[in-house]
Structures are given as structure tokens and as C-alpha cells.
């Protein structure tokens, strides 16, 4: 039996095949490197082996039942770096690469796209960015399994008194370099780029894993007593520099990892609520609720990794908010531990008029006020039926007009997104190899119908992807209503498959960035929300600004600047941009990237867009806070911070 080895250097030899009870021997590949991995067993020799997962904890091989797979297992799994990349996005086993034939492949087995060959990605990649497979820019400290070079990580400056007291509480902690570096960053471009270069700035000095609310209370209490800086860590998917340690922080910085608090404490079927610990990761929450026939319906694109507490702290938004609502609509009750004490409401009334809602101090506080430990969240019965769909429009303007009409009639499906032409082509480049001549024939026919018969210009047309949810009959009825509206704006139904692929794109896009970074292409996404009447102007101006800024800053190749409308509201929409460019010939690409992104954000603000729709402010965007919420607004937030956390224990310095 052969397992692929994820260090990419070899494969696991068959003699290493574990027995279900086998614990303790490290997985070593033929290159004699320790590979930690997470492989599904599918060997028919083992009855029921599909239900078992082979995994490794710190190089130790473990086989466990599937329902324990690592994220539920995170309670015993302190070190996520075993399954996740430390210098890139997502699972270690899932990545894009160009194989020997020059074709793109997506490795692993976790996604629909996993293990597939994507024949057109290379051409798209090379023509869009002017990149070439010959020009590689591998990470200097790359190799997926290899641990980072611990000696390069700054030595922890520990607060001994705090450490002594912490030991006495029995809360697990670590000051190993790996653990600390892993929690020193989110996924901003500059953060990942620095990691790939093997550069580490200020990293936390200590990581603690409280197991429950009381543990957090103890930790915060100790932190206050010993003047230690705390930075809460949930899923680590921040894209606002919120997890970055302030470089001039002289106190001991403790990363408070909530991953061990991932239990569903109770489900209340009468009121349709669940009380959940805040460290639970999105996909676990959803899976565990599904087992009882429920769901939250909150599906941000990062839901595989981001945590409930993180959603609350950043005012997250989910793809299906049209049915389920954003986090502020979903949350019924929050418990947060602050230096001043624990803040929570005394009842679970569905709506209250008791002064300004204290939840709104907590939501969006981005770890500056305390740690969210427990949340009561609304749940819904799982939808009986789900259906994807897509609509092709002759141009982006028509598409936006259609979305606006859908929002006006308040008949938006669970999700409706409109990709612009560049993104449509991007999506097309991710089409896997078709298995039969028949499918390719059908594709050709479809293309002919749309471009030749209907006269859509392939360089202007754009696609809306749809997701309907509910009981079957109503979904079909709803579908018809939406397609009828679309038809009024020249939209043509373009099939379920296109729709589904559109959503898949959002899950794999972050992996694609890692691929780009191997070939001199850097990029990121950013988002905003904007009134309906300014959507088109904002999209056009921001894209043009990006192109212009790149040119003025000496970027040698035209950048990719593309957007999609991802959410509709009564009074406006959320717009999401991807921006990437080929940085060959630039001395300081990250700096230039940052400047262009800064200019793009200024353009957004000048065009009536908001500072952020759901990514949050962090440290990356706090520069614009005063102009966004006025000086008095800043004063309000400051005074809250002052009262709740006078000694700046939660010293991430986000937001303000």
C-alpha cells in the first residue's frame, strides 16, 4: 500500500502501513523525511477502513475514526501545522502545481477539484500575467513537510511570574518556535510573502490553549495581574493584519488559541438555537449540527478554517446570508471575557430595547476588548433541497441591473453572485479535463449558442452564479422567478455546473495564490459595500485605478483586476475584488503591492464604498477609521476600550 508523501519528495513505503491500533511510529517517507499527513484509508483489506483516517500528531502516526477527523480532534491536536501549511493557505495535502507535462493539477482529495488536471489553467495563467513556467520563485524555506527553521525565530521573552501561575492552573501552553510562528500571522500577502522568505518579525512569546470559558477567565486574570499582552487566535484566516504582533510591544505577548474550545454545549430545538464554544471551526460546527439535522447556514468563504469567535469579532458575513443572515442576525447571546470581567446579557429574548446593543461593542471589536468564549447562535433545519444555477449576461452592466432588480423584489436566492468578464474567464480556466468527447462537444455547442446565436461578446459577457435552498417545490418556483427577472435583462440560464464551479472557485482561490507565488505572481482580494447606484462606477474606477497605479509604479505586466458582486442588500451590494500581478523585475514587490492596494482602497472610499464589508479593519485599514466613522465615533470606541481594558491587555492594536 502506497501513500503519497506530502513533502513532495517521495512516497510512504508500504511497510509503513499502519494498523488501526498502531500508535507511535513516525511516518517516514523513502527520502527519510518525517512526513505528517492526513490520509484517507481506502484499502479494501481493512474492513470499514473508509471510515478511518490516518493522521499524525507531531510525527506520530495515529489512526482514528473519521468522525474524529482532525478538526474535531483539535481538542487533542494542539499543533495545526501538522495538517496545515505554515507558509501558505489551507491543508498541507492540497495544493496546485504544474506537473511535468506543464499541466496544472490540484493535489489531495478534499475538494471536488482535488486530483484533477486543469488543462487550460496554464494558458490562462501565462497569458493573463505574462508569467512563464520557466520563471520560478519558490519559497526560500519551502518544502511542505519540513518544519521551519526554528533558529531564525526570535527567542521568546517570557514573563516568568505569569508562566509560574499559568503552570499552576494546568492550562496547556507552549513556547516552541513552530507554535508561535504559526500564530503570528493571518493571510495577508505581506505576511505570507515574509514567511516564504523565512522572515519572522515579532511573534508571540507563548501560546496557551484554554479548554473552556473558566480557563479563559483564569488566563485573562493572570494576564492582567502580570501585565501580559493577549492576542486571541481563532482560525488564523484574518486578512487585515489583525494577528500581527505590534513590533514595539515590549511585554510578553501571549497568543490565546481558542481551538480547544470547540464543543457544542447544547442544542435547543424548541427555540432553534445552539450554544457553542467560540473556538469551533466553521466546517465542524456545520457538520456536527448536520448530524442532528440542523445547520447555521453561515458560510463565509473561509469556513473550513475560521472560527465562530472570529466571526463574531470581525462581523463576518456568510455566502447564504440572504436566507440565514449575517453574523449579527444569527447571534442570540455572546459571552466575552474582558479584563474588566465577563460581559453578557441576562436573557435570550429575540430582540430587546435596552439601550445600545452591547453585542455591537463586541461584534467587530477584533480582539481589542476581550475573548469571545461562548455564543448562542440560531440554527435552522437542514434544507431539504439545494440547487445551483447560473445565468449569462451580455455584459456586466446588465448583470448588475438584474441583481438590483432581484434585490428590489426581495427574491434573492440563498446566494447570488455576479462575476465580471475577467473572472468568468478565470473560472473557465479552472475547468477540469473533460472525460468524454460528448461533453466537450456539448461545451462547444453551448459556446456557439451563446456567442454566435445570441450574439454575446465573449469579452464582455459575465455570469451570475446562484444557489437555491429550501423545500423542493419552493426552490423550483423561486428559481423560475429569478430566471424570469434575469431574462428581462438579457440573461440566459447557463446550467447548474457553471454555478457550482463558481462557488468552488472561492474555496480554491487561496490555494491558487500559493501557486502564483511560485511563479512571480502575487495577489490578494479585498472587498467593500456600496449603494446600488454606485456599484458600476465603483467597479470600473477601482479596476482602472489598479491598472494605472501598477503602470505608474513600474509593474512590467498588466495586472489582473477583477471583481464580483457577492451579496445583495436592499440598499446596496457587496463587491469583492481580486488583484494580482507578475512582479518580475521589481525590487520590492510587496511594498508596491501594498501601495496599489492602498490606492485602490482610497478609490473605493472616494466612490462611496465602505472601508470593509466583512474582512474587518485590523491594522491594515485602521488608517482610514477616523474619516470613516468621524472623530467623535473614534472617541466613542476609545472610551469603551478605556473602560473595558484600561491596561491594554488585549494589545493587538487593531481598529483604533
Amino acid at each position, binding site marked *: 500500500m502506497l501513500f503519497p508523501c506530502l513533502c513532495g519528495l517521495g512516497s510512504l513505503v508500504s511497510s509503513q502501513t499502519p494498523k488501526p491500533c498502531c500508535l507511535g511510529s513516525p511516518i517516514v517517507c523513502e527520502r527519510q523525511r518525517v512526513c505528517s499527513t492526513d490520509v484517507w484509508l481506502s484499502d479494501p483489506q481493512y474492513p470499514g477502513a473508509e471510515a478511518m483516517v490516518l493522521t499524525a500528531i507531531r510525527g506520530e502516526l495515529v489512526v482514528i475514526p473519521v468522525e474524529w477527523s482532525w478538526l474535531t480532534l483539535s481538542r487533542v491536536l494542539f499543533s495545526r501545522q501538522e495538517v496545515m501549511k505554515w507558509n501558505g493557505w489551507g491543508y498541507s495535502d492540497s495544493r496546485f502545481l504544474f506537473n511535468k507535462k506543464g499541466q496544472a493539477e490540484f493535489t489531495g482529495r478534499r475538494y471536488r477539484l482535488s486530483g484533477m488536471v486543469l488543462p487550460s489553467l496554464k494558458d490562462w495563467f501565462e497569458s493573463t500575467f505574462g508569467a512563464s513556467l520557466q520563471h520560478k520563485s519558490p519559497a526560500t524555506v519551502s518544502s511542505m513537510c519540513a518544519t521551519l527553521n526554528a533558529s531564525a525565530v526570535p527567542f521568546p521573552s517570557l514573563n516568568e511570574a505569569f508562566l509560574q501561575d499559568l503552570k499552576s492552573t494546568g492550562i496547556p501552553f507552549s513556547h516552541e518556535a513552530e507554535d508561535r510562528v504559526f500564530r503570528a500571522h493571518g493571510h495577508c500577502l505581506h505576511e505570507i510573502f515574509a514567511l516564504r522568505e523565512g522572515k519572522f518579525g515579532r511573534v508571540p512569546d507563548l501560546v496557551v490553549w484554554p479548554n473552556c470559558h473558566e480557563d479563559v477567565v483564569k488566563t485573562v486574570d493572570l494576564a492582567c495581574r502580570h501585565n501580559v499582552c493577549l492576542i486571541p487566535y481563532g482560525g488564523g484566516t484574518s486578512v487585515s493584519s489583525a494577528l500581527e504582533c505590534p513590533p514595539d510591544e515590549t511585554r510578553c505577548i501571549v497568543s490565546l488559541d481558542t481551538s480547544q474550545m470547540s464543543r457544542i454545549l447544547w442544542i435547543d430545538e424548541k427555540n432553534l438555537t445552539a450554544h457553542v464554544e467560540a473556538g469551533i471551526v466553521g466546517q465542524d460546527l456545520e457538520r456536527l449540527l448536520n448530524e442532528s439535522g440542523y445547520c447555521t447556514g453561515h458560510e463565509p468563504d473561509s469556513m473550513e478554517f475560521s472560527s465562530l469567535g472570529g466571526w463574531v469579532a470581525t462581523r463576518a458575513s456568510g455566502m447564504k446570508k440572504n436566507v440565514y443572515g449575517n453574523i449579527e442576525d444569527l447571534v442570540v447571546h455572546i459571552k466575552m471575557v474582558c479584563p474588566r470581567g465577563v460581559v453578557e446579557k441576562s436573557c435570550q429574548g429575540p430582540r430587546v430595547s435596552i439601550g445600545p446593543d452591547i453585542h455591537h461593542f463586541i461584534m467587530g471589536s477584533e480582539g481589542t476588548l476581550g475573548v469571545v468564549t461562548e455564543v448562542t447562535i440560531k440554527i435552522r433545519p437542514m434544507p431539504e433541497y439545494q440547487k445551483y444555477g447560473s445565468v449569462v449576461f451580455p455584459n456586466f452592466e446588465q448583470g448588475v441591473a438584474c441583481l438590483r432588480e432581484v434585490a428590489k423584489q426581495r427574491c434573492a436566492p440563498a446566494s447570488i453572485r455576479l462575476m465580471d468578464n475577467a473572472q468568468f474567464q478565470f473560472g473557465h480556466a479552472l475547468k477540469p479535463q473533460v472525460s468524454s468527447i460528448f461533453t466537450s462537444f456539448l461545451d462547444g455547442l453551448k459556446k456557439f449558442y451563446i456567442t454566435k446565436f445570441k450574439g454575446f461578446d465573449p469579452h464582455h459577457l459575465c455570469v451570475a452564479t446562484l444557489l437555491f435552498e429550501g423545500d423542493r417545490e419552493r426552490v423550483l418556483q423561486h428559481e423560475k422567478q429569478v430566471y424570469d427577472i434575469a431574462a428581462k435583462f438579457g440573461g440566459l440560464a447557463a446550467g447548474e455546473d457553471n454555478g457550482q464551479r463558481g462557488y468552488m472557485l472561492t474555496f480554491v482561490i487561496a490555494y491558487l495564490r500559493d501557486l502564483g507565488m511560485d511563479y512571480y505572481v502575487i495577489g490578494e482580494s479585498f472587498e467593500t459595500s456600496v449603494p446600488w*447606484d*454606485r456599484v458600476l*462606477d*465603483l467597479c*470600473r*474606477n477601482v479596476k*482602472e*485605478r489598479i491598472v494605472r497605479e501598477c503602470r*505608474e509604479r513600474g509593474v512590467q505586466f498588466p495586472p489582473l483586476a477583477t471583481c464580483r458582486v457577492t451579496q445583495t442588500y436592499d440598499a446596496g451590494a457587496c463587491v469583492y475584488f481580486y488583484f494580482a500581478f507578475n512582479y518580475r523585475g521589481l525590487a520590492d514587490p510587496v511594498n508596491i503591492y501594498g501601495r496599489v492596494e492602498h490606492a485602490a482602497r482610497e478609490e473605493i*472610499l*472616494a*466612490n*462611496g464604498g465602505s472601508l470593509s464589508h466583512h474582512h474587518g479593519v485590523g491594522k491594515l485599514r485602521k488608517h482610514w477609521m477616523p*474619516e470613516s466613522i468621524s472623530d467623535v465615533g473614534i472617541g466613542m470606541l476609545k472610551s469603551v476600550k478605556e473602560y473595558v481594558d484600561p491596561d491594554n491587555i488585549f494589545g493587538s492594536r487593531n481598529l483604533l
Partner: protein
Amino acid sequence: MASNTLYSPRDPALKKRDDFEDILEERRSSSDLRYALRCYVPVVYKGIAPCKPGVLKTAVLQSDRLRHVVAEMSKETGESADVIREEASGILEEMAHRLRLGTVRFFAYSLSKAFKALFQRVRVNEDGIQRLQQSIQEHPVVLLPSHRSYMDFLIMSYILYTYDLSLPVIAAGMDFLGMKIVGEMLRMSGAFFIRRSFGGDKLYWAVFSEYVKTMLRNGYAPIEFFLEGTRSRTCKSLTPKLGLLNIVMEPFFKGEVFDVSLVPISISYERVLEEALYARELLGVPKPKESTSGLLKARKILSEDYGSIHVYFGHPVSLRSLAQGRINRSQYNLLPRHIPRRPSQETQAFVNETAYRLVRLQEENMVLRPWVLVAALLLQNPDGVDMERLVEQTSWLRGLAVSFGAFLDWPDYVSASKAVASSLALHTGLVRTEGGRAQLAMEPKEPGSPEEDLFDRAASVLSCASYRNQILHVFLRPALLGMAMQMAEASRKDDIYSCFSFLRDVFSNEFILCPGGTVQDFDEACYMLTKCAAVHVQKQEVVATEKGQRILSFLTSLFQPFLKGYQVVCRFLCEDAPEGFPESEYVAAVRSFAVKRILSGELTCYEALSSDVQKNALAALLRMKVVRKLKVGDQVTLRVNKVAANTLENKLGGRVSTQKALLARL
């Protein structure tokens, strides 16, 4: 990017300018008919084919902005919305252009014929055309030509047609519509007509601004209008009008377009067609109403030689780069964009400053013929000058002008004597050369009453002055410094600066002086005069050098007529103006006052008779609060602060030494 051309390079003489191509050359050697009927496929904005004029009208009438204004007016007046909408539609009908290729081709044909008869050459900088072509594809373009003659917009369209560029839509005054067929033909060649004044008419303003903005947003065609608002009768640039500039900038401020390219265009005539007309008009002979028969009568001008025309397409200026750091566009975030509102003060200041900059860019690229130098010298020697001396002086002045950055069309191989001779030959109507002396033609052809003679003389002085005026912008700043030095009677830099600032303030209606740019102008003047070694600038002092006397005295006497003109106005206000006299009588009253003084020999400056100077002086006095306007019934009367007027006159005449207290009061 295009914007960095806005700041003049430190050394004006090193300014790099494009070469010219004569577009008539080809016309003289090939068929005009074939030219008029050739395939015309202009490049368009972002490759979008422009819509039909009819579609455009509907878009305007159904725009949010117009609907909003109609609803608001209907609420205010109680009139039904339909009636108001009908009215709006009527306004639009009257205003809108109906661009048709057929008419354009007709013009292409007939103008070819006319231009060949009138002009020796029509010269265009082709590099500028190429830049324009690039701009048209990228951003909406606004063409801003200088305005000296009715020919301006015909020439513009003709050139754009010749180079296969999209034809502009042109904002024209309603008075053209008075010309029966021609008005409609202009309409069909892209002109749209606006009333001269519609201050309070909300509906008119809404229709008009929406019409222009819709064309701009859609990239329908380049929009052309004259910053100066009307033809300059004096050949010096007029202070810019801001209405249309405000309108074309708004779509950018509100994020409706990414950028707008503003293209300053300088059209310079060797002889303006309306030359004789203008001088008469300035002296109070009213301008003939535009009429078709008038145009036909003007046919006789076809037999005269009007020399060459130079058209210089300046670098497109990116509005976005200009506004960078000046305009906070998020101020438009909180009000729906179709609701009209008064621009903020910072916006107004920005628009104003930009307008001045653009006019200066027009001025900078105006081509000057040697005759302009000759005219300036002749005016300073009303009793005539020896030919030899004239040639020597012209040659000297040429050097000075070039070092100040003038755009002289005087190639090196042409000697000064030749240049002077050919200049005089082209303008025989204005100069008399007898016995080796050149003199302005001042003697009336047939003697009449002393007053008639005086007007005849004044007419030829003003005609001549209109040529001299073309070069004033080159010398303006150094001359103001020269006058300030004279006025301050001391060499302390602070004193000179305050005099400079005072003069600049007085003349800011007369010349193109960007508001708020005093320090910059002062530095520029010091730099230029230092460069030609006329003054010596030290930390505390500005001292004239020996060598500088000639330059300084030339500069001060160049601007003397304006100083005199303003003094006359002040004197009139002190002595002759009755308490609270109506504004409408102002020009005639000043004129007759000046005539009396000339006849009595107290005044020798004929330019004081120019209504242009008189009006600018009044505007300056109003601004300086020496005169106030009072509305009595329907009449606007003027109330004069005689003490202030007297002080001002003395100060301009250099009769009072500078005192800070006095300055403060002014």
C-alpha cells in the same frame, strides 16, 4: 503623466514645443471634393460607438437629475409635472445639436475653399493631434481652445475632421441661432446652443448641465467650449468663466467617469478676421447682430490676405491628477448624486485655479509673429521711429522675449530687417512708412470733427494694441515687478513685494493671474529678471542693475496704458461721477470723460477709451470695494467711495509713497 506640464519648467526659454505641419498644403494639391467625401472613421472612447442624437435626448429627459428637478419645480409652482417636462423637452430641442456627417462634409468642402482663399497656411502640431487621439480612446475629452474669432470652432472641427478624430460637440452662444440657415447648419455640424444668461432658471440649468454631462459620461464625443466665454476683442486672454468647467468636472468628482482629459488649445492668428470690427466695438460702436446677410457681406474679406493660423494642441491635462489631494471626492457620498448642490468652497477654489492654469497653458502656446514685437515698439513711439532703430530694437526685444519663454515664430535664418519689413507689409493699414521712418497710421483719411478724428486715431491705436496684447502674458510678471520697484521707490524686498501684490490685485481682472499665486508669481518675476541680468535679487533687497534700465523701462512703458486707463477711471469716479449713477451708463460716461481729457490735452493715452479696460477697471474697483453696487428698483446703481478712489489713483500714478496703513485700507 499629462499633469506635470502644468507647472512651467523653471527656465521658460528651454521650453520644448512641437513642430507644425501645414494642413492646407495637401488641400492645395488634391481634390477638395474627394477630401470631403472620403471615408471618415474616427477612433472612439473605449471603442464604444456613440449613440444617436435622439437617444441622447431621451437619456437626458429621463435622467434622475431632470426628473428630480421637474418634481421639485412642480411642487414649488403647482404646475403639473407634464407641463414642466414639456418645457424641458422644448429647452432641449432648442439646445441640442444634430450632428450629421453630410453637413460636416459640406463644411469640409466649403471651408477648404475658404481657408485656401483667406490664409496662407493653417499649421497644426501633429504630435498634439497624436496625443489627443490617444486621450480620446482612454477618457472623455474636453477641448478648450482660445477664443479670438468666430473662425475658432470652424477651424477646430475642420482640423479634427482632417485628422480623422471624432468631431466635437461645441457649446455656442444662442446668438448664432439668429442666423437663419447658418445656425441650423452649425447645429448639424455639432454645435449646441446655450443662452447667454439663465441665472435663475433652474430648469434650464438642469437640462443644460445634464445634457453636457450625459455626453461626457457616455464618451459621446469630445466636448468643446471656450473657457474665456466670449471672443476676446483685445487679443489678450480673458479671465475664465467657470460654469461649463464646473459641469464637465462634476462627473469625475462624483465618480461617474474615471478621469477627464482637459486639452488646452491655442489658436493664434496672424491677422484676426474681425480686426477692424473689434476696435470699433471697443470704442462703443455696437457689435453687428449675427445675421446670414452680414456673413455674406463679409465675403469681401475673402479677397484679403490673413496670413497663417497656428493651432497648438497642448498636452492633455488629467483632471484626476490635478484633483489629487485637492478634492475629497467622498464629500459626494452622502447625497444622491442626481440631486444638484452648490459646490463646496474648496471645489470652487479648485475649479477656479484650474481654469486659470488652463488659460495660462493656452497663452503659453500661442504662436507670436515678429509683427507683435514691432507693434509693441511702435506703440511706445507714437511719433514714429527710424527704420534702422526699429530693426535694432525689434532684434533686442526678440532676444528678451525668447529668454522669457515666448513662442516666437521667427526662424533663425530670417534677419531682423527682413522680419520687420514683411511685418510692416502685411499690416499696411496700420503703419505708415515714409522716409525711412515707421509710424502708426494716425492721420484720419478724411478730416472730420475733432471728436471723429480722435476716434479714428484711437481705432488704429487699439488695432495695433490688439497685436501688442498678444505678447503681454510673456512680460506680465516681470513688468509687474518692474512697476512695483518704481512704485516702492526703495529697494527693500518687502516693500516691493507689497507693491507687487497690490498691482497684481488691481490687474487681476485685466490679465491672467491665478488667484492666490502671488508668491509664486513674484518668485517667477525675480527669476526671469535676474536671468536677463536686469535686477539683482538679494535676501532683503531687489536692485535694478545698470544694464537692466532698458529692460525695466521697456516693461513699465509696455503696461503704462493700463495703468493710465485705470487712473482715468478713478479720476472720473472722483470728479465726474454723480452720486449713485446707473451702472448701465458707466461705460459711456467714462468714455466721454476720457474724450474730454484727450481733447484738452491732459491725457494722451488713447487706450483709456477702450471699453474693455474700463469694464475691467470697474470690476477691480468693485472687488476692492472702492465702488459698491446698489440695487434700486430695477436699476443697479454705483456708489463710489471717493476718498478710496482718489487714493487708488494717486497710488497707481506713483504719487504717494508706499505706506502699509494705506495698503491695508485698500
